[in-house]
């Protein structure tokens, strides 16, 4: 700021002297005035602003996982030929799937034999069914919102879409149904349902 004041003082004096002086003096004053103007301009430019940059970085960790609550599907006592539903009205348990790899993934289910413990007797896999009652994912469940029969081969339940591939917590609320064959021997039956979450190749 004070340089501008100096410039304001010097330049009128130089102009006055320029008017009165010889050619050599005029040239000298003119060159001096130019020098002062240049320095003032350069100074103003230099003082305009200063910047400094700092880098920032973060690694967003990959997530890929499946979890289930209420793992034990206990149907209790069933009369031969009758059907029992677990989670009727709402849901019995929930399956959480989460991936942020950016690649599509799918969820499959299969039953690993529902057998009588005391004798060699197996309930047909199709008698055990699953139904999605609610889904928070971007896609629809593969079987819609109706009961689907399980098989001993993995069966597609859900295929990811959109935000599901970038970390959206996909929650499937499940019901289960078991129809006891009319000729089923009395006893305790036991089996396993396997849910598999995998990325599409």
């Amino acid at each position: 700021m004070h340089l501008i004041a100096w410039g304001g003082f010097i330049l009128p004096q130089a102009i006055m002297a320029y008017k009165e002086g010889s050619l050599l003096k005029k040239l000298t004053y003119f060159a001096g005035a130019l020098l002062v103007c240049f320095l003032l301009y350069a100074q103003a430019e230099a003082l305009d602003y200063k910047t400094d940059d700092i880098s920032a970085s973060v690694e967003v960790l990959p997530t890929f996982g499946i979890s289930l609550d209420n793992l034990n599907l206990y149907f209790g006592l069933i009369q031969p030929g009758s059907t029992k539903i677990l989670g009727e009205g709402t849901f019995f348990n929930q399956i959480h799937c989460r991936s942020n790899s950016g690649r599509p993934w799918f969820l499959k289910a299969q039953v690993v034999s529902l057998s009588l413990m005391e004798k060699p007797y197996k309930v047909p896999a199709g008698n055990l069914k699953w139904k999605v009652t609610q889904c928070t994912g971007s896609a629809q469940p593969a079987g819609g919102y109706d009961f689907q029969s399980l098989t001993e081969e993995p069966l597609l339940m859900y295929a990811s879409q959109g935000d599901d591939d970038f970390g959206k917590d996909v929650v499937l609320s499940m019901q289960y149904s078991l129809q006891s064959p009319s000729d089923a021997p009395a006893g305790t039956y036991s089996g396993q349902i396997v849910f598999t979450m995998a990325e599409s190749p």
Partner: protein
Amino acid sequence: MLKKIIICAYMLALPALGYASLELTTDHRSLFFGAMRLGEEKELADFGGYHNEITCRSTNGAIWYLKVNLLQPLSSGADTIPAENLSWQLTWTNGNGTKPGGAYTYKSFSLMPDLVYISGPGESAGNGITLQFKYSLKIPEIQHSGVYNATIRFTLTEMF
């Protein structure tokens, strides 16, 4: 006589040009948040409540101000973390100027420069004003995995 005055004026003006200065210095401590999970929030304040410090110095007698902005959001290829998920907070300064960004509260970064500090009386006489900052980052619940980078710019400007 007039010639002497002009010569004296030049001689006084030229050295004065050398003294006038505006300086911005940082400790260049980068914001390395490390590995974070979806939805996680982390604060960088390693050194007794702050992460890095900026020093501003002016000898021009004019009011100066400090601004901060993101040059681009945290990016990994085409994926970005929204700028507002990264925040800064002025934790301490030895200056007595104005803090338009709000004193000692977190403020989200933006791509447009935000005012951090406006110099107070007597802060343009060459005394260094130090400002200490801490930072916070929240990873969105939906975010592609990967390494994200950004550049933060501090700008010191003088009012003429």
